């Protein structure tokens, strides 16, 4: 093996290495802008309890008592899988998925409804406020 071969291989491999690294960094950069874009797309909304706020990070949010639910409300009055929230065109919708106690939005028992800012959602004994991020 001659030196030239070795040097050139090392150069080629190094440039590929650096390229891979740069592309990974690009992906990380995109992760940040992706977050912002997601927030914009979903109108910067979140659900809030008394003290906790639940981010709405994906387009299907499952709310329930079960450990695998995206928003977990450990309260016996809440069904295991109580409601699902979906987003479309930047509008969030909440749908009952066979809960025992039903969903009350602003006091009205509903099956499915498009949510508006500051709606109060009552699941069993738990109340959640649908609000804009950054409002406390």
């Amino acid at each position, binding site marked *: *093996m001659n030196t030239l071969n070795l040097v050139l291989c090392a150069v080629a491999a190094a440039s590929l290495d650096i390229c891979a690294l740069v592309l990974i960094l690009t992906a990380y950069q995109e992760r940040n802008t992706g977050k912002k874009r997601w927030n914009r797309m979903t109108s910067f909304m979140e659900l809030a309890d008394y003290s906790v706020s639940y*981010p709405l*990070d*994906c387009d*299907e949010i*499952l709310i329930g008592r079960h450990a*695998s*639910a*995206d928003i977990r409300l450990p309260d016996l009055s809440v069904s295991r899988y109580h409601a699902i929230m979906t987003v479309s065109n930047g509008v969030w919708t909440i749908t009952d998925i066979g809960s025992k106690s039903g969903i009350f939005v602003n006091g009205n028992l509903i099956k499915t409804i498009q949510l508006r800012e500051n709606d109060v959602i009552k699941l069993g004994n738990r109340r959640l406020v649908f609000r804009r991020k950054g409002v406390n």
Partner: protein
Amino acid sequence: MKSIKRCQGLMSLVLILFIIGMVALVVKIYRESSFYMMNSDDLSLGKVYDRNGDVLFDGSGKTEFEDNYLIDVGNLIGDDNGQMTNTLVSRNIKRLNNYSFNSGLVSSGGKASIHTTLDHEANRKVYDAFYGQDGCAVAYNYKTGEILICTSLPSIDVTKGYENIEELRSGTLMSKNMYRTVPGSTQKVSTVIAALEIMGADTLFSKSFSCSGTYENKGGNNIDCHNIYGHGEQNIQQAVENSCNPFFAQLVEDEDFPLKKIKSIYKEMGYTINDDNCGYFDIDGIKCDKASTTLNDPYEFKTQWGCIGQGDTLVSPIQLMMWQSAIANETGKMTMPYLISYTTDVNGKENYSVETEFSDRIFSSNTASTTKQILLTNGENNYSSLISGYTIGVKSGTAQVNEGRNENSLLVGFVEDKDFPIAFCILLEDKNNTSVKTESIAKVMLDSLSETYS
């Protein structure tokens, strides 16, 4: 988000499994690449040296050898063309590979080598001492395990290549030291060891049996003595020195010497009993036959003959020599012999060096001491003039082969000298057809070794 995290978890798992596989692959390739190259068409082999730096094999084929340069150890060293499989080079050809994954294939100037423990010059002298008579001789340092002499006849100079394999005499392309042969009376050493283990020295020395030239055993067969006039009443020391067959036949029949125990001690020593498939042990990859014998019934002719060293008993010379080390060391543990003292890789870096290894205890150290004393006395009484200048313990043997038509002569022994600890075994075939004696070969062997080796 939990649901998506779950997906990510599963993806990570898949990727991690794959990466683990890749790591395993790289490790495997890195470690086995040398082996892969051995299967390649273009490969470059290094050299084999003896202990003094003489070249015994050159894979590049560039070294010019004199005629008959390698006739002494040629059938042990072998070559790389695939005919001689049970040889040092073909069993260790991987170590000669001038290749490493880091430096690639080095076609010329690679430094892969095997440095053997053999003494080429001494081997040559021993070879010459056979005067062309078939046989073999092996000797090693019983303290360290280095094999110094390992020559076998007939032989050819493999450096010059060989054609017409059919025309070569049988045994030309192998070192007879590694293969089983009839041990003759050298087997009696094993029987003495078994007797000492079972009865203890006091009981054994108190036993005496008489010999009148022949003995009709309890099974009704005759066990003949080589002395047709008989040796009279003997104890074990005299019987060993006389190599008296009737004595040993009676010993085997003795009530204090149950066959079941003999079998277990033989097994400890490495015999395969009542089984045609003897198995192997290996010395640096070279396969060596294990000893084997047939033991059925203490009154049976075949069994007694087996304990005397004829008939079905077969032992390789190298194993006879190894037992001598267990006796000479007075430990009951064999020193394991080796041929490769160290090897170097393609860059000349030492990548393997040997450490002396010992076998498990095959008999007690008391037995070893007593046997050693018996053999030393035998050496002093009968061989001090033939092999002068050394304190040696020996046992000779005469083996009947080809259904009694030919007789081979054997000599096993050791030198009692802490600066010159040599154990050896010499086999001379068809002894009645030559004036060469095993004792004279032993003398040449020890003389040449003591010149170059101390």
